[in-house]
């Protein structure tokens, strides 16, 4: 159970794992997430599921190596097993034929976006797809998303490929106003920017929030967010919410609760190993 069956490096520090777990693979829908535990002393951390193959009994996770846990997950090789994998958690994306759907995927979230966009496509929607990243080499799933999109755009923060920044979406929407939008990104600022672009057009915009989580099943409230003036638990009430109602400042503030501890943990992991090998 939870054996890695395939591993790929999609871009520098962005990895993709296909993990054997037939029960989750049979049940998961686009938009849901899983809680991962790498080792016996590991934390529980959520990753949005980026695909599933029920016939092979595998699910796909894509992640950025940023902190200790994701770095450790990146060291897993084919054949190794995760300590724990719980899912599918959260509510699936609402998939209907809305008409034309604007799908935005930032960085590593272009992975789960592909999984969701395929479902939108199958439901008969026309897709305007835009993906973005800090720089050109970090763009993932360009070909795959382009293949299912009616219109396809690329942007980067540094302008190394496609448009610079996300403001171009204003022009895209002026040309063809969509009926529905989905903004996927782990960066709060990007999610907020997309939602502010769609707001004047009156396009309902769903966004998947990524607050800190602990159990992921509704028992702790670590992931509480404010949506439309009400406190919600992202793990059981979400993770997707109406992006025009999200309190972004609170989300970003709470995501930064453990910045210092995350750094300590990451340093201990890397330097601890360095010192250990130097002492040998």
């Amino acid at each position, binding site marked *: 159970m939870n054996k890695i069956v395939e591993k790929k490096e999609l871009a520098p520090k962005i990895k993709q794992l296909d993990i054997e777990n037939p*029960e989750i693979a049979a049940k998961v829908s686009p938009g849901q997430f899983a809680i991962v535990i790498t080792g016996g002393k590991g934390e529980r951390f959520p990753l949005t599921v980026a695909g599933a193959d029920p016939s092979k009994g595998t699910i796909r996770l894509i992640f950025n190596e940023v902190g200790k*846990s994701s770095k450790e997950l990146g060291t897993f090789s084919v054949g190794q097993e995760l300590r724990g994998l*719980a*899912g599918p958690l959260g509510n699936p994306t609402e998939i209907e034929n809305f008409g034309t759907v604007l799908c935005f995927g930032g960085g590593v979230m272009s992975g789960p976006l592909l999984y969701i966009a395929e479902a939108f496509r199958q439901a008969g929607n026309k897709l305007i797809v835009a993906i973005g990243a800090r720089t050109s080499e970090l763009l993932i799933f360009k070909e795959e998303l382009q293949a299912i999109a009616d219109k396809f755009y690329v942007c980067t923060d540094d302008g190394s490929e496609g448009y610079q920044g996300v403001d171009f979406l204003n022009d895209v929407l002026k040309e063809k106003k969509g009926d529905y939008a989905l903004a996927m990104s782990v960066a709060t600022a990007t999610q907020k920017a997309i939602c502010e672009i769609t707001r004047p057009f009156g396009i309902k915009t769903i966004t998947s929030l990524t607050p800190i989580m*602990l159990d992921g*099943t*509704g028992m702790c409230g670590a992931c509480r967010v404010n949506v439309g003036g009400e406190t919600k638990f992202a793990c059981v009430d979400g993770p997707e919410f109406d992006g025009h109602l999200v309190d972004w400042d*609170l989300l970003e*503030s*709470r995501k930064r609760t453990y910045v210092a501890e995350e750094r300590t943990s990451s340093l201990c992991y890397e330097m601890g190993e360095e010192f250990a090998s130097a002492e040998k």
Partner: protein
Amino acid sequence: MAKLNLNRVPMNKQEPEIRRWNPYEVALGYSYEQAVEEANRCLQCKKPGCMNGCPVNVDIPGFVGALAQGDLPQAAQVLWKHNSLPAICGRVCPQETQCESQCVLGKKGAPIAIGRLERFVADWARANPEESGVFNPELPKSTGKKVAILGSGPAGLTCAADLAKSGHQVTVFEALHLAGGVCVYGIPEFRLPKSIVQAEVNYLQNTLGVDFELNHVMGRISNVDELLKDGYDAVFLGVGAGAPMFLNIPGENSKGVYSANEFLVRLNLMKAYLFPQYDTPIKIGKRVAVLGAGNVTMDSARWALRMGAEEVHVVYRRTKAEMPARAEERGNAEEEGIIFDLLTNPSQVLSDEQGWVKGMECVRMELGEPDESGRRRPVPIKGSEFVVDFDTVVPALGTQPNPLIPRTTPGLETTKRGTVQADENGKTTKEGVWAGGDIVTGAATVISAMGAGKRASAAINEYLK
């Protein structure tokens, strides 16, 4: 018979000024000599009141009598007959309101320390598994019936153990990555060492042959109807009341505000007190406020102290007399230096520019007429608002049932409070489905959940015949 002795043998504890700095167990337990001496105080009543006070009907005079004779294997066997989790019960049961409250010695002096004796016998058996003879029960031939237990807390484990002993094939489904429910995520190491919980789980797994499916979030990965379709003959819901409650006051989402559940899950289940050796962090400031007055409040406050907080306040809107926490735990907290701010109710959490908690606005309360719980209702005193500095706030206001299972189980009726409707044997409105513990009663005790698990197991056994 020895002369009537009205004083119980004291149990050794870590001194308050020592234990407030460490996570090790506070109570150190009896020695053999102490246990036998205490057991010898028992009058072996013809009509033992103590047993009536026990939700799982442990044969208390039986095991205490054997212990008084120094016959430890016999004591262990009597104890295990009715209770699969004695090492846990001996530590966390509120004996003072149950078995011990019914002891005749209590009329004139101190009742027999039944909890401490139970703990002693359970710990002895675990240390001497062969000699005790309780870890190799003869299991009956398999009945070929399959039972699914949802949740591995006290209700689920008790139900699972009893059904396995009846020869059924039992699978326990647990959402978290460790079995034990509230015993692993809720009750702190210093009250209930996790190695003990693990030993009890191992007994079910290795000796009784119970299967554990961890990381299994029922209602998401599967549901009750699917289990019944997949060949399970009966289902027991022991999923607890896991969803935290907040005060719903302004500022409650500031950084540094933890629900007691989050606070305790980080420390107990994820071992944040060993960060960065363990990956899960927790941030506890110098001045901590824990809101509420139950056992969970005491647990959170005492953990905060052990994590280096300089001042820990329990903030409660009523008085000491109405506190639901066990007297022993409140006493332990007081000894350790926890400060009680009584007749005080927070009205707002205040935060700094970065969104971190910096204090609370509170209002003074006074007690008015009794409310529906029979306790005098606290009412705010107008104009008594004041501000106190805190950098960590932990609302420990109780929990409510997680709606995931009821919502995904058609035919399962719930009450207005969200709890599952069940009769005294745990039978629900859905055929083949029983429930017990906090999911039925709302947040209560380990032992009452175990009692419910036990009654349900008997009913399921009958159903499967």
